[in-house]
């Protein structure tokens, strides 16, 4: 049975991006349920809080990447950040020909704003958005020759799935895909402002039948309405959120409970509350049962190390090398999850990024405050020898490490003079330990 501290650390990792120094100790007394309730009670932030840097154009995307990761690591509403990340892997857009930085930035902003609201709402907004219309070829689809791409993925990947998660029944047919493609015609791109608009003259206004009903002269709003009213819709969303947060496959009874809790439109906040309230969420089977994906590694380490001035790290490059840049999903299905990241590539790639982060501050007084690493400075100042190993694990929020890891970190910390170099090497070691690599 996991300790209370381990459960608290688990809540930080699953409802956010892991604990910062002190976060586990601060909540061990109150317990994991109290922590979950507190995290869920934090009001979401909005565009005014995000303070995106002026980036001019796409040549300065590094500033945006740095700010996005900084928000993920430091925003008070960690649940919002976690769910925005879930949506990035669910409502996927990526670089493609003319679909570039500005549109993708707008897309991620939309996901961030909608990440705790009704999923039906954000799905409708995204489906009509410039980024998605460009990514899945909605732009240019004509009445004479409708394009199936957007409608198919709206059904398969964004709203329903191929089969109902509980009944196993097919959610849609190829005939539905063709009819929905007709309904989604008529969208055009204004190249002057890079914005999508609807041109009724290119829209197939004829009667259509899809998803089990006659829909009349349906267009995009009616398609979204039909998808979100489909019996499979809430189950599809509930299963995805449960898998992401609990890391376990849900059974039918669990899904029924989650769907009931999510309510009309499928409230994402309601789903998170329901998942966090499930007893299995804090079970031994759930704790540490997932491999951290690259963004979880990077943001988790930023929280541990409390690093600022992130633009200097070129973390967009790091995420590209780690194969999880927010603008570079491998395909419309997003990134792999969980154990698909369990390969030595992660260990090796991550070892380079972890070292870069840990060695960014040499401990000298001349390092600007924004470029100091408070965690390593505290480690160096507060302990030495084997005790420093214990402290490094605690600062990283790694509770109940294996005997092998505990011994390895203690021995290494005590294996030489206690210098700032050894302090940052100890933290480097902790960040490549198996305990940090699982979530």
């Amino acid at each position, binding site marked *: 049975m996991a300790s209370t501290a381990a459960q608290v650390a688990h809540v930080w990792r699953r409802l956010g991006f892991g604990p910062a120094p002190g976060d586990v100790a601060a909540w061990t007394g109150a317990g994991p349920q109290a922590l979950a309730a507190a995290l869920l009670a934090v009001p979401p932030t909005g565009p005014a809080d995000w303070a995106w840097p002026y980036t001019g154009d*796409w040549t300065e*995307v590094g500033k945006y990447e740095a700010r996005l990761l900084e928000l993920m690591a430091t925003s008070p509403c960690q649940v919002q950040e976690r769910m925005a990340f879930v949506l990035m892997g669910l409502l996927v857009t990526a*670089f493609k*020909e003319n679909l570039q930085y500005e549109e993708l930035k707008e897309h991620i902003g939309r996901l961030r704003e909608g990440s705790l609201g009704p999923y039906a709402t954000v799905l409708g907004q995204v489906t009509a958005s410039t980024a998605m219309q460009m990514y899945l*070829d909605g*732009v*240019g*689809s004509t009445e004479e*020759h409708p*394009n*199936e*791409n957007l409608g*198919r993925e709206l059904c398969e990947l964004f709203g329903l799935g*191929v089969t109902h998660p509980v009944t196993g029944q097919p959610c849609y047919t190829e005939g539905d*895909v063709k009819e929905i*493609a007709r309904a989604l015609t008529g969208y055009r791109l204004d190249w002057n402002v890079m914005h999508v608009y609807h041109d009724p003259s290119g829209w197939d206004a004829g009667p259509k039948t899809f998803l089990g009903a006659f829909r009349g002269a349906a267009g995009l709003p009616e398609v979204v309405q039909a998808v979100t009213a489909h019996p499979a819709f809430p189950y599809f969303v509930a299963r995805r959120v449960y898998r992401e947060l609990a890391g376990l496959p849900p059974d039918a009874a669990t899904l029924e409970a989650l769907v009931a809790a999510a309510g009309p439109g499928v409230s994402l906040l309601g789903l998170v509350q329901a998942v966090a309230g499930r007893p299995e969420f804090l079970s031994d089977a759930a704790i*540490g049962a997932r*491999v951290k994906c690259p963004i979880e590694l990077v943001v988790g380490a930023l929280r541990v190390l409390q690093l600022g001035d992130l633009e200097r790290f*070129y973390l*967009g*490059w*790091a995420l*590209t*090398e780690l*194969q999880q840049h927010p603008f570079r999903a491998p*395909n419309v299905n997003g990134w792999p999850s*969980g*154990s*698909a990241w*369990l*390969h*030595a*590539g992660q260990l*090796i*790639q991550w*070892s*380079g*990024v*972890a*070292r*870069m982060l840990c*060695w960014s501050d040499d401990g000298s007084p001349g390092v600007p405050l924004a470029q100091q690493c408070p965690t390593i400075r505290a480690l160096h100042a507060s302990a030495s020898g084997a005790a420093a190993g214990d402290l490094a694990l605690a600062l990283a929020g790694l509770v109940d490490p*294996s*005997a*092998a890891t505990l011994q390895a*970190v203690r*021995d*290494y910390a005590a*294996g*030489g003079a206690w*210098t700032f*170099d*050894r302090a940052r*090497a100890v933290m480097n*070691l902790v960040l490549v*330990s*198996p*305990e940090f*690599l*699982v979530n």
Partner: protein
Amino acid sequence: MAPRCDRTGMDRRAFLRTLGQVTLATAMGPALFEAFGSPAAAAVLRSGSLETTLPVGTPIVVLVTLDGGNDPLNTLVPVDDPWYYDSAYGHGALALPAESTLALTGTGYRLHPALAFLAERWNTVGDVAFVLGVGEHELQTFSHFDAMKLWQTADASLLEPRGWLGRYNDQVRPGNPMASVCLGFGPRLEGVGVTSPVLVVKDTSLFRFALPYAATSGFQAALDHMATSQENGLRGQVARLLGTTFAISDRVRGASDATVTDGDHPSITDQLLQAALLIRAGLPCQTYTTAFGPFDTHGDQLAMQGSLLADLDDALRQFFSVLAASDRRADVFVAIVSEFGRQVTVNGNVGTDHGQAGLSILVGGGVQGGLYGEAPTLDPGGVTRPNRLHDALVPTLDFRSLEATILTRLAGDSGVVSAVLGGSFETLPALPGGPAGPKRGHRGNAGRTGAPGGAQADRPAPSAKPRSGGPGMLPESRPRR
């Protein structure tokens, strides 16, 4: 898309130098490890008792997946079929004029103009096989992800967590973490097994775990100590993976050769060159996998597919060029597949939507050049297109016949092939069985329907234009596990 270096004032190589390391890795499948994950297996590996060099003469496949569903009609172009050019039911605005395409001696087909190397290879060496009408009939899925999983696992239930090449490696090279290599983004499911982890390689020269810049003494020992964890579960698996990574890194990094890989290449060229280095170095691996794309040409297909096929062709040229001086050149063949083809008619974005029957290509050592299988008819059969599946070409050859053909070449032993695929599937004479085992007989109507001209006396008559109807190769039923 503009190069990323413009965005940050830093190019990728500079960033990698900042990291001081790596882009290669071993990869595990979904929590499957048994032998490999055990401390005992790691000890065996470190003791050097595991096979580290593939004997010369052992067949090797490099499986290249054209992600997204490649259009077969504009790859192997049926220029003699008037339905191909039909504006209402054919490829219309996408149809390639015959004069722009490349001749394939002895056939009624011509090749996409970007595939000059393949055309040259067909016309001179004669070791290119085109497998027509390949697809599946059990799911008839138009979903990328279901179709990919079906191809990758050869299991229509879509529940099988292991790939078909991973299961092969479980049989023939159990526990060897170098038995299954994935180039580029990975691991790919085809190579995932229970006992053989996937080795994911982006760059052989950079396979190095990053050690700290100072206080290095004892760091490696600490990692080794972590790797001795006896824990069950995920943490224990990660711990043991640490140890195995160190055990194989020198072997892999030793294959690197900057004179081969230097320069800026498209990703598929990078991936195939890394594969060539590892093959040349004799890594104990018969199965290399990689993918690139997207071939999901819903829009602007002519430019998009043309650019990708040009990259593929150049990558193949460089790959075989590197291997030309190797004593393994006759062992290596490339298999090019895609999860499905595309619909026949053109959409409003001058692209095509998801289809069914596709085209596979085999090229290289051991390949008997020719056309294999039956071309699906392009004749729609009337205004309701009864000869098509939602405007897609109907498959005539089960994709598992192609996989059985490849496995038979690798294994030379039908018992292994049956065990891997869960039953017997017809094989194509495009690849004879490997040298280690007996050649299998071929049954059904699998066989050549055309062949390259010039080099072979027993070449059958050139195929006419693609036939309508005729017996397909999809079986009435297949044995299931």
